């Protein structure tokens, strides 16, 4: 139990740098929600119930355009399709956990905590299930809480947040810093480059489907390159 507690704090401290970007990102959502007429309570409820930045931003802009309710929900969920990929990856590590634990893991899957945990599990295959779970909840608990708190502060500040802070760019910089250390092998670099190029070319494809297509092609390419490089010549 002592070692699981140790892993919880490792996840927690590992996720700490992300608070400096997820906090501002949450604030941006809060500000936009306030500008769209949501009050502080509904803004916080939104972030607490959905905890998915990209989907929330998409839903907000569609609501702004007076899109039908069902369209807002479906398009928002399409943006979140990548979560199913994260779920499949986490299942290989945490699949043996009890039902309710998995349900809680699922609720709190976030880009950052997923990427941190995935890297941790791949580099430390000897970790036990309880250690893996402790690390995951340490990382995702902190990031999720900061996302909700950031939303609340943003909704409260509203238009008082100045533009020169360029808070919009906190997230791209954090994501780049998160991916860069993972680019170690040729297949990884090839997959990342393919995903970026395809996502740019497919950016006009509606409902965020361009991202899904780009990700699947890049994933297939990376795995196939790895297989060919490992195969005896």
């Amino acid at each position, binding site marked *: 139990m002592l070692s699981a507690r140790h892993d919880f704090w490792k996840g927690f401290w590992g996720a700490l740098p992300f608070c400096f970007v997820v906090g501002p990102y949450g604030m941006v959502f809060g500000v936009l929600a306030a500008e769209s007429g949501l009050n502080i309570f509904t803004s916080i409820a939104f972030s607490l119930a959905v905890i998915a930045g990209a989907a929330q931003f998409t839903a907000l802009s569609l609501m702004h355009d007076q899109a039908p309710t069902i369209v807002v929900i479906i398009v928002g969920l399409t943006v979140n399709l990548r979560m199913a990929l994260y779920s499949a990856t986490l299942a290989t590590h945490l699949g043996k956990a009890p039902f309710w634990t998995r349900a809680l893991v699922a609720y709190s899957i976030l880009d950052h905590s997923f990427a941190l945990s995935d890297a941790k599990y791949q580099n430390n295959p000897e970790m036990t299930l309880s250690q893996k779970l402790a690390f995951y909840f340490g990382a995702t608990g902190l990031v999720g809480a900061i996302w909700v708190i950031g939303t609340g502060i943003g909704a409260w500040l509203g238009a008082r947040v100045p533009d020169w802070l360029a808070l919009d760019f906190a997230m791209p910089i954090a994501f*780049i810093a998160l991916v*860069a250390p993972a680019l170690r092998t040729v297949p990884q670099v090839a997959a990342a480059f393919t995903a970026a190029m395809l996502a740019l070319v497919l950016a006009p494809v509606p409902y965020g489907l361009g991202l899904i297509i780009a990700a699947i092609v890049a994933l297939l390419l990376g795995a196939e390159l790895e297989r060919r490089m490992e195969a005896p010549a």
Partner: protein
Amino acid sequence: MNVSPTTLWMIIAGLAFGSWLLRFSFLGIIGNKELPEWAKRHLRYTVVAVMPGIIAPLVFMPRATGGVFDLPRFVAAAVTLAVGVWSRNLLIAIGAGAVTLYSMLNMGF
């Protein structure tokens, strides 16, 4: 924006439940069954296949400028990537990117 409270709560509830279902999907179905090696090999590429796809449009077509290419944001992204690959350290990479972005925005690019 003219969205009634009922509509807003329906959207929040629908997104919340749907997102949870997507996140639970494989964790729920696969449970403690072991995935085949080829599937695991593909899933190891999830991070490098998804994140660059999220990042690239934000770098080349930033939200803040309404999708128009912005030099400070592009250079900041390039510096973050280079420092991240070189240092393999998340905090150093974020710091380098932030310093680059604020310097360039301040210099009026």
